[in-house]
């Protein structure tokens, strides 16, 4: 379980993140929303230990994040960055198989998990293809499969951090991806996902953190956060909010 206490990050004199108190609960998908430059990726970097916060602490289970052994940490915490640069012609299953590096579960079991993770990301048909020949969206799904394989099959006590996992995906695969993430959470994994699409956030997230200029504007249920007033205040966007005709979650329409 990942917990952040009063995080602050400064770049030079500028404070890019401040006053973050956050606890990721098992089985919960927490969405992070905010305009460009609001500190979303900085938050993710601080939460996974890539960036050392200038103030505050991050705890994984009962131990401070920086004191974890790398391999032990990797079995509990997986991170999907916004984009990856891989210039070598690995086959797709080799890329996904890298997610099994923290384990010694054996070749047969790993192959099985790789295939399941690929299928969860709707990338099973890419098995055997060369990574460098894939499109941007296909690559994104392969990397999603890689981080899923790292925590497979997903259990209470694990945490998954995702930075815009749908940015390069077509509409169908935006939903497929978030459904896979949702299922992962249903097995007990705590998920934090940075999103730009308000309607995807409304549909798949249990709680939303709205960031504005590096500070939390609100942290609440989608119904509370996705109201015209906060969205106007943070994004400067005039919206109508209605209930989804079939599912009931908020539906955000730009005016």
């Amino acid at each position, binding site marked *: 379980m990942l917990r952040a206490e009063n995080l602050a990050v400064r770049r030079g004199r500028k404070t890019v993140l401040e006053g973050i108190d956050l606890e990721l609960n098992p089985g919960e998908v927490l969405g992070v929303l905010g305009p460009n430059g609001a500190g979303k990726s900085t938050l993710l970097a601080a939460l996974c230990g890539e960036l050392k916060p200038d103030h505050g602490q991050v705890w994984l289970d009962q131990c401070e994040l920086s004191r974890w052994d790398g391999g032990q940490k990797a079995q509990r915490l997986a991170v999907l960055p916004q984009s990856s640069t891989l210039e070598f012609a690995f086959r797709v299953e080799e890329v996904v198989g890298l997610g099994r*590096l923290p384990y010694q579960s054996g070749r047969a079991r790993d192959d099985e998990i790789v295939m399941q993770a690929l299928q969860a990301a709707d990338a099973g048909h890419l098995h055997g293809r*060369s990574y460098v020949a894939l499109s941007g969206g296909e690559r994104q799904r392969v990397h999603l499969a890689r981080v899923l394989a790292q925590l497979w099959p997903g259990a209470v006590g694990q945490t998954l951090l995702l930075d815009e996992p749908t940015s390069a995906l077509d509409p169908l695969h935006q939903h497929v991806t978030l459904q896979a993430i949702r299922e992962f959470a249903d097995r007990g994994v705590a998920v934090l996902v940075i999103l730009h699409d308000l309607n995807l956030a409304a549909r798949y997230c249990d709680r939303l953190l709205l960031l504005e200029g590096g500070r939390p504007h609100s942290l609440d249920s989608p119904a509370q956060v996705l109201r015209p007033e906060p969205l106007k205040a943070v994004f400067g966007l005039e919206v109508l909010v209605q209930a989804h005709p079939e599912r009931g979650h908020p539906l955000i329409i730009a005016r």
Partner: protein
Amino acid sequence: MTPLLKPRALFIGLSLLCLLAIWLSLALGPVSLPLLDTLRAALRLLGLPIEGQGLEQAELILGQIRLPRTLLGLAVGGVLALSGVAMQGLFRNPLADPGLVGVSSGAALGAAFAIVGGALLGGVPEAIGPYLLSFCAFLGGLVVAWLVYRLGRRNGQTHVATMLLAGIALTALASSAVGLFTYLADDATLRTLTFWNLGSLNGASYSRLWPLLLVSAAVALWLPRRAKDLNALLLGESEAGHLGIDVERLKRELVFCTALGVGAAVAAAGLIGFVGLVVPHLVRLLSGPDHRTLLPASILAGASLLLLADLVARLALAPAELPIGIVTAFIGAPFFLFLLLRGRA
């Protein structure tokens, strides 16, 4: 672009190629020996009970000249190819090469420093000479590898263009320093220096071989242990970190292994370029980028390629001999251009 060969087929093919290269390297030269005599004499040298009638000359040539030369070629080729793999993994770019980023020049500077410095101080004892040379070459390689690495990084990312430019600058700097040593050197030292700058397996002796064999064995045993981690490093440094790898430590090991390997190779055989670039590329084309195959296969391929290049060096202008660095550059430089053009298309 799917790999053509399964690892097993690749290893069988490369082993056969390597054996063939060894055989030819033992047989051919100014005095060419019949292939069968070579084989019999070589087996006799290995201690097998074979009739020695009429093999005295072959055994003498093999034992005194061709065998050390062949061993030198195997070790230099293998360790240079390994260093290429390590550099390309470190920079996460298939165009990195110990020669191109200046590590070889740094090692050459270290070697020149040892040669000329030793001569100016009135000679170094025969027993520690080769080791001192290896140590200085290693130190030179290490300093340049570290400098290029530091210069090529900004905000936690490696900029390949900056790195290559830094490599050019440091190569120029090291070359001018080698030039200065050349200016200071007397005639005998000058000949030795010229030899370092072009590279050659000529005059191989067991005393020069030992430091290199030790270092090559160490690097060849160490790097494959890190094969999986190298695979993960290709994803990116932070991604590798999230997979539980101590990235800073891995990078230090890679720089250290490269400097050690290139330093020892340069000390033993001078500057031989492009092996570290061409070999890993060829192996990747044949069987993909997985380091678990790439590292051991590169040792075999590098060793074979260098022996074959040495054969060209020996035979092209026989009885005169070309420096092998010229041969590898003739093959390697067009190959590098081909890679650049292919990358642009």
